């Protein structure tokens, strides 16, 4: 076998130009596949990275009613769900996967917020606890955050995110300390925050991208959760956001937190009137963790499936390359008829001749495959440079490519090798 491989390399080296041209089809096919796979993988890793984030690895655990995010809003009455408290928070913090916890509640006001003559409708309010900003990765851009003093005194202060500030103050710069009107009540703007490492979509070819963002065009307004009842008139249920120990722990941290919360509110799927008072509180309500990893996976699948078609097209090049190999192997068999005849006269069995030519074809295409892998990696970086897409080289793809090109050699080398093996020794020896 080793001798056959050595012979194959001798043969390939003896016909450098011909061998290279024969390999070209395989090289192009493999290069295209490697380039495509690397680009897909790069894109898909970027999706994951962007979704999961690097600085703001947090999992939101929000209350759902059926399939919908539960918000009572200002048009509905309140509910009797037990209030989030410090012991619950400690219980969640005790989880191995969790490093930080914050609670918040969210609601929207149709007759939102007014500054001067500028009325912004349908605004999203977030009632935050003392840990919310740090867990969510917000930093102060202007002004300050809420203090303990603000909370205790039920100060009517509001903090805006950058989007909200742009919308409400429309270009006005010096708005810290200004008074805005919410529900006919005056609130003072004490700060503007922005999220670090916020999700910035670099992948533009995915329509789905935005569906995975909380895309609120009018921004968010933050108040302390202590003054929430003043704003909404009743207690909105709490949502929780946890910071997992690592990205891999995200799913677990989210699920475990959701379990604790569901246990606490006595979540159940019961409907109808045949329930105790306790059961009816938790009926059809449930905390669910927002699984970013799964969402990332779904997005990756979208991107991968579009590119799979490209791989099929590239595979056609491999078939064409394989036919080229078959052609050259047939020529090679004809050229070496005398050699085959001699070997048979010296006692080489059919299998020996077959193995020799199959090895030669396989070595030829494997070599092509390896060169193709190199060319493909180069191509991937060129594409990434031109199209500004990320690259991730897949080791598995490289191994599969080389093995696959070897298989092509064996498949397309088979007919010529059988032809060689079946030559009649006397005819072969006489051939000139």
């Amino acid at each position, binding site marked *: 076998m080793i001798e056959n491989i050595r012979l194959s390399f001798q043969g390939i080296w003896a016909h450098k130009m011909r061998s290279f041209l024969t390999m070209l089809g395989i090289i192009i096919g493999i290069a295209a596949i490697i380039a495509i796979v690397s680009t897909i993988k790069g894109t898909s890793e970027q999706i994951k990275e962007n979704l999961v984030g690097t600085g703001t690895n947090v999992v939101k655990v929000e209350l759902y009613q059926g399939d919908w995010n539960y918000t009572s809003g200002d048009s509905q009455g309140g509910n009797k769900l037990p209030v989030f408290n410090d012991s619950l928070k400690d219980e969640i913090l005790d989880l191995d996967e969790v490093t930080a916890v914050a609670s918040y509640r969210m609601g929207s006001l149709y007759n939102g917020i007014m500054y001067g003559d500028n009325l912004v409708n349908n605004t999203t309010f977030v009632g935050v606890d003392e840990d919310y900003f740090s867990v969510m990765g917000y930093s102060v851009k202007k002004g300050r955050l809420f203090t303990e003093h603000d909370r205790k005194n039920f100060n009517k202060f509001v903090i805006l995110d950058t989007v909200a500030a742009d919308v409400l103050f429309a270009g006005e710069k010096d708005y810290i300390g200004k008074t805005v009107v919410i529900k006919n009540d005056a609130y003072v703007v004490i700060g503007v925050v922005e999220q670090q490492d916020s999700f910035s979509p670099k992948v533009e070819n995915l329509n789905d991208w935005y569906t995975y963002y909380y895309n609120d065009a009018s921004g968010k307004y933050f108040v302390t959760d202590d003054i929430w009842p003043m704003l909404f008139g009743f207690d909105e249920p709490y949502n929780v956001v946890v910071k997992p120990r690592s990205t891999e722990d995200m799913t677990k941290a989210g699920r475990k937190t959701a379990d604790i919360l569901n246990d606490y509110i006595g979540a159940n799927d019961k409907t109808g009137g045949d329930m105790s008072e306790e059961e009816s509180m938790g009926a059809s309500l449930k905390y669910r963790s927002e699984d970013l990893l799964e969402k990332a996976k779904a997005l990756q699948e979208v991107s991968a499936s579009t590119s799979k078609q490209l791989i099929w097209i590239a595979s056609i090049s491999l078939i064409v390359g394989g036919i080229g190999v078959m052609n050259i192997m047939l020529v090679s068999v004809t050229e070496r008829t005398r050699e085959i*005849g*001699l070997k*048979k*006269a*010296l*006692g*080489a*069995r*059919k299998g020996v001749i077959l193995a020799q030519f199959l090895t030669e074809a396989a070595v030829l295409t494997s070599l092509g495959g390896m060169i193709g892998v190199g060319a493909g990696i180069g191509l991937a970086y060129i594409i990434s440079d031109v199209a500004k897409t990320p690259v991730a080289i897949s080791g598995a793809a490289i191994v599969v490519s080389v093995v696959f090109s070897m298989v092509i050699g064996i498949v397309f080398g088979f007919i010529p090798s059988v032809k060689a093996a079946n030559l009649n020794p006397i005819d072969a020896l006489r051939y*000139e």
Partner: protein
Amino acid sequence: MLLELKNIYKNYIQGNMDVPVLKNINLSIEEGEYVAIMGPSGSGKSTLMNIIGCIDKPTAGTYFLDGQEINTLKDRELSFVRNKQIGFVFQTFNLMPRQTALDNVGLPLQYAKVPKRERKRMCLEALDLVGLSDRVSFKPTQLSGGQKQRVAIARAMVNQPKILLADEPTGALDSKSGIQVMELFRELHERGTTIIMITHSDEIASHADRMVKIIDGELITGDGISDTESNISNEQPESEIMHTYDGINADSVGQEVRYE
């Protein structure tokens, strides 16, 4: 009896015509004999040699080699016979051009699945036998004609076959190299190898113990060799080209001539 040919016929098909090349050949050769097969171009002597060497099959007749009936053997068994029992020496050497003398000599051992180390030892021994110990790693292009033929003889002998078949072994050599090859054959013969050699030349044939003449596919043995020989050479002078492959009558077998 080492080999025995009984009523061997060989026809080549040309178009829809059957062209007889060998007609009713009966030949027996004992172990240890040194036989020269002589005959003009197209007389069928190479065809006869190919049949003896198990690389061609007779149209009719039986062939026993070392007690085995060759006609009944399968392809795999024939390969085994060619590998173990027969050593070929060709007029044009037929060495692998890109492989060293050592690797060339090792080919039959490779097919016999001899372990690598053992193979090398046997090859060196065979090359030593033909006096080329100092040319072991030379490639055929770096060797003279005589040296090439000696490498070919080493290759033929490396598996210690019972029979050495030589088709015009000196045909492509100058007279000095030819004499060396003949000396080598004599040596091998003295060691007990059965040698069957095809030649045109009386002088070369005179090295053999026994001469067999073949004319128009028919075997002529015994006396009167020199008579027929002189007739033949008058009839059909040998040309350079015809030396290469002269198994078939060039006039009657157009299909085969194509290859010559």
